[in-house]
């Protein structure tokens, strides 16, 4: 009976199948992608590090520690890396890069992929040779055989770098890499005092030795000396964690698509079952029990749910084949997509169960269909009563959704949080939709033209789906908008604040004897010296009488590890700059009497992290000399200003004689001047590095754009299911619409007037949905900005406006496309009551 009954109406279930398949497709796709990603991280774990063990520090690894690891290893490599300017001699172009001086056979696993392939071996064995990042070479039109000047030395480019172990394209574009042989590092003259240099030693361990044990034994010793140790397991965890964050967000979107799909299922089955009321009434007249009638349609829903789930799995497989391709720029290895069968099995189960559960929500209405409906004239409505079976189904739905989320996330609390976030969003949007709907009805001026008024009144027609449509459109809009807003938020977070005269170029690593000459050079190019700051490096060795060891033993104090381990870069001046203000205590700009206590100022955040109070005693080691200081004031600092800002600020009269380097900040408006100035600086002062902030910002925007594209790709599914729900709702009210339109046509409305009325209706529907979604997205982004990024998010008017227009216009378009048959109805039908 179930099959026979469905024969004439299978077409009507297309929307239902589409809803299920998009939701399941998104879920299966993301799960498979995540599994493939994690499997690849496992397989390529060694390639990510390129060695069994790496030791990182701001100074070379002392021999004692080196031998600690060397005795366990087969081979060792050393790498010294730092930021520096390079000059491509043929084009005379300059660029800040990450210079890596390499010694040894690193990497031991995987390889530095170059073109030609021999490049990665040649550059370290045969003289002044370098490898240069492929994109950098393309950007500056550098060919193999050209020369690149690094510091005082010139190197021949023998290979373009295509891939480096553990590094993604995105990582490379932020700091493009240039490899040079370690043998020539000293001669480049770039190892100056104050330069930020990283020293890494790689070890390939003897296979007979358990790496994990070595790591455990040596970790304490090495970390105590201020070095970081990384082994394969660590790297695997780090990489896995980074991608889990991304895939978690994608999973949230996939679940939103599934949830919208559920609404689509519910709504399309409601439409379907509503059309079956007369049949059920006839069957009941002939003696069929209500539960048998429900079973007929439950079987249909189950079968079509299965078909939808199968199609969803196919879509999911396509997504997981496609996602690695679009995400490859920020994944540091290639993914070979393979089908993940558990995801497919789960997709099938979830698809069928969701169809049945959401189908039941409508089907239980059939219990109340009276055989009398056969005798009644008119269109019987399907009444859903809020009784025990209804709440039992709702509970089952929530429980099943929770189980599905748990399966996906493997974490009971996170699954609950995800589900609650999605449900809370839905409830919030529903509330907003009800409020907007009510306000619209109450506040819209009665003086509006007929077409607009009729369009609005259509939103309140019997059996209207306005609230559910606003909710659905709103949820899709929220996801779409959040993507853009998050991008805005991140860009705003890093973008340069301040007026037009803001600085945009920073020169650092300036030695004291270069300071004056550089100033002269800068002024020769008519560039302003906006700030010139001396920087002294030092280490903190004592807080209130506790040194590092004592602080570790004392359980009453909790200083973060970095407090004693980091190298502090500190300046001194007698006045505050405009990016900082004293919030507590008193700022003493000059220190005159060496017998007095020396009062310094620290940033508010630093004081909070170290639980410091005014008057606390800090002792610094300034390259051998111990300086005792007291906290005299706390400063609030606007870190987003392009200024050199400091955690710790000394007064003048103390550090003037200490070894120091300098930073100079300027503003360059013209690209040509910038290029010529940079060339001149690199030629005259090869050790000085230049940060072009406009370039950094542009790179960052590109990077965010790449990540956003992946998320947008997944959002298409939630938007797609949202649109299906909308189409279902249009079909649901088709009968009513036809009746009204034919009637209007009969009493003289032109087709243009009908189109305008329909456009007005969908315009208001889209506008309300977009408004609700944007409202929620702005709230979420602001909360995220406030709590996570500690930053006040200011909505970008252009983005808000564009999304509002996009969603509204899309709603109008879909509405109009689906209304064609309604407008085409002949007016004669009103006489025949064929509608």
């Amino acid at each position: 009976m179930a099959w026979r009954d469905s024969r004439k109406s299978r077409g009507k279930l297309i929307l239902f199948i589409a809803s299920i398949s998009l939701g399941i497709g998104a879920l299966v796709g993301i799960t498979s992608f995540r599994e493939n990603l994690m499997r690849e991280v496992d397989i390529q774990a060694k390639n990510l590090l390129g060695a069994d063990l790496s030791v990182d520090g701001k100074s070379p690894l002392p021999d004692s520690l080196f031998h600690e690891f060397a005795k366990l290893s087969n081979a060792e490599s050393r790498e010294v890396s730092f930021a520096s300017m390079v000059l491509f001699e043929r084009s005379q172009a300059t660029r800040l890069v990450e210079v890596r001086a390499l010694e040894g056979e690193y990497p031991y696993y995987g390889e530095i992929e170059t073109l030609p392939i021999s490049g990665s071996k040649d550059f370290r064995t045969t003289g002044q040779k370098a490898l240069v990042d492929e994109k950098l070479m393309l950007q500056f039109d550098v060919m193999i055989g050209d020369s690149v000047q690094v510091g005082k030395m010139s190197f021949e480019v023998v290979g373009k770098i295509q891939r480096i172990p553990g590094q993604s394209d995105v990582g490379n574009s932020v700091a493009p890499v240039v490899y040079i042989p370690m043998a020539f590092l000293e001669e480049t003259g770039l190892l100056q005092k104050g330069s930020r240099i990283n020293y890494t030693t790689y070890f390939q361990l003897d296979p007979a030795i358990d790496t994990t044990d070595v790591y455990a034994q040596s970790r304490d010793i090495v970390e105590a000396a201020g070095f970081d140790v990384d082994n394969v397991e660590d790297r695997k965890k780090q990489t896995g964690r980074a991608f889990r964050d991304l895939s978690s967000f994608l999973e949230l979107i996939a679940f939103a698509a599934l949830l919208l799909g559920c609404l689509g299922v519910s709504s399309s089955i409601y439409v379907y079952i509503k059309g079956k009321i007369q049949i059920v009434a006839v069957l009941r007249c002939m003696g069929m029990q209500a539960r048998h009638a429900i079973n007929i349609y439950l079987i249909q829903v189950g079968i079509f749910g299965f078909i939808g789930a199968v199609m969803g799995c196919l879509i999911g497989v396509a997504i997981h084949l496609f996602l690695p391709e679009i995400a490859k720029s920020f994944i540091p290895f290639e993914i070979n997509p393979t089908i993940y069968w558990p995801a497919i099995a789960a997709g099938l189960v979830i698809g069928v169960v969701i169809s049945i559960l959401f189908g039941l929500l409508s089907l239980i209405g059939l219990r109340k269909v009276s055989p009398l409906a056969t005798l009644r004239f008119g269109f019987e409505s399907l009444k859903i009563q809020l009784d025990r079976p209804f709440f039992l189904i709702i509970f089952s739905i929530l429980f099943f959704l929770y189980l599905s989320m748990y399966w996906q996330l493997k974490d009971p609390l996170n699954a609950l949080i995800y589900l609650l976030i999605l449900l809370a969003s839905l409830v919030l949007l529903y509330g907003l939709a009800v409020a907007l709907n009510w306000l619209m009805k109450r506040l819209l001026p009665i003086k509006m033209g007929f077409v607009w008024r009729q369009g609005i009144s259509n939103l309140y027609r019997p059996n209207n789906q306005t609230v559910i449509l606003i909710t659905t459109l709103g949820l899709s809009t929220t996801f779409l908008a959040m993507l853009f807003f998050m991008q805005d938020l991140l860009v705003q977070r890093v973008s340069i604040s301040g007026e037009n005269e803001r600085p945009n170029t920073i020169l650092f690593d300036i030695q004291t004897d270069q300071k004056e000459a550089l100033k002269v050079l800068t002024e020769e190019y008519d560039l302003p010296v906006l700030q010139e700051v001396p920087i002294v490096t030092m280490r903190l060795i004592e807080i209130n009488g506790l040194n590092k060891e004592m602080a570790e033993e004392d359980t009453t104090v909790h200083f973060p590890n970095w407090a004693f381990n980091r190298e502090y870069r500190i300046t001194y001046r007698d006045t505050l700059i405009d990016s900082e203000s004293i919030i507590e205590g008193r700022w003493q700009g000059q220190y005159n009497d060496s017998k007095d206590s020396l009062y310094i100022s620290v940033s508010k955040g630093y004081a909070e992290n170290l639980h410091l109070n005014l008057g606390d005693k800090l002792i610094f080691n300034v390259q051998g000399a111990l300086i005792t200081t007291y906290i005299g004031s706390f400063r609030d600092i606007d870190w987003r200003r392009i200024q050199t800002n400091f955690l710790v600020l000394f007064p003048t009269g103390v550090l003037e004689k200490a070894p120091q380097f300098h930073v100079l900040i300027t503003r360059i408006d013209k690209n040509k001047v910038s290029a010529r100035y940079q060339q001149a600086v690199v030629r005259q002062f090869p050790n000085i590095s230049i940060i072009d902030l406009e370039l950094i910002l542009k790179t960052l925007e590109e990077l965010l754009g790449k990540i956003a594209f992946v998320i947008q790709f997944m959002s298409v599914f939630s938007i797609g299911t949202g649109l299906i729900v909308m189409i279902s709702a249009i079909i649901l009210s088709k009968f009513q619409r036809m009746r009204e339109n034919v009637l209007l046509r009969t009493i003289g409305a032109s087709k243009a007037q009908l189109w305008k009325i329909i456009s007005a209706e969908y315009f208001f529907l889209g506008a309300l949905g977009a408004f609700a979604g944007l409202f929620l997205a702005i709230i979420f982004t602001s909360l995220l900005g406030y709590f996570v990024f500690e930053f006040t998010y200011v909505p970008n008017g252009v983005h808000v406006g564009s999304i509002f227009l996009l969603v509204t216009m899309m709603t109008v378009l879909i509405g109009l496309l689906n209304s064609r048959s309604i407008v085409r109805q002949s007016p004669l039908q009103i006489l025949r009551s064929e509608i």
Partner: protein
Amino acid sequence: MPYILTVADLSKTYVSNNEALTVLSNIDFSIKKGDSVAIIGPSGSGKTTLLGLCAGLDRVTEGTITLNDIVLNTLSEDQLAQMRNQHIGFVFQNFQLIPTLTALENVMVPLELRGTKNATGPAINLLERVGLGDRKNHYPTQLSGGEQQRVAIARAFSNNPEILFADEPTGNLDAETGTYIEELLFEINREKGTTLVIVTHDLDLAKKTDQIVQLKGGKLFQGEI
């Protein structure tokens, strides 16, 4: 007296699955301005089809229909709609009010469709004329069948039509209400000098009209009623 509606040699054939079905053939009649006319006949005789064709809701297969000196055959869909809005009023068996609009707004619709600026005044007058001045802000679902049909009559007259087509206007009402609606229809018709064309099964109602067009098997029938 000049004719407002002239039907000449009218035929209507529907084609379905390559099979032609002629529902009206060789119909000729004319209606004078201000007259009332009943179209009667058994079920399936083509009454509603004829009404639809005369009102410009459908197109003839053969023959011509001239309404108020305009030949309907040559008009486009939108021209027909414009003509209905300017010259024709409708009353339906099942009222056909727009459920999302109040009684007043329903009556205003034809006026607003033709772009009348202040449609409220005339609409209120008409509602008061049909005795529903105090129910103007009620929605159709809040009105009884008889009240709904009175709103429909007010709407039908709101654009001051020259001809009013009524399809079984009392078919869904009880006898008492039906009689009241009939009287109301004829009264307003007389007051406004409108031509009235009623499709009905009710012979008593038909006998109250000036002219009867009787159909049988899709053809005019000149027999005893």
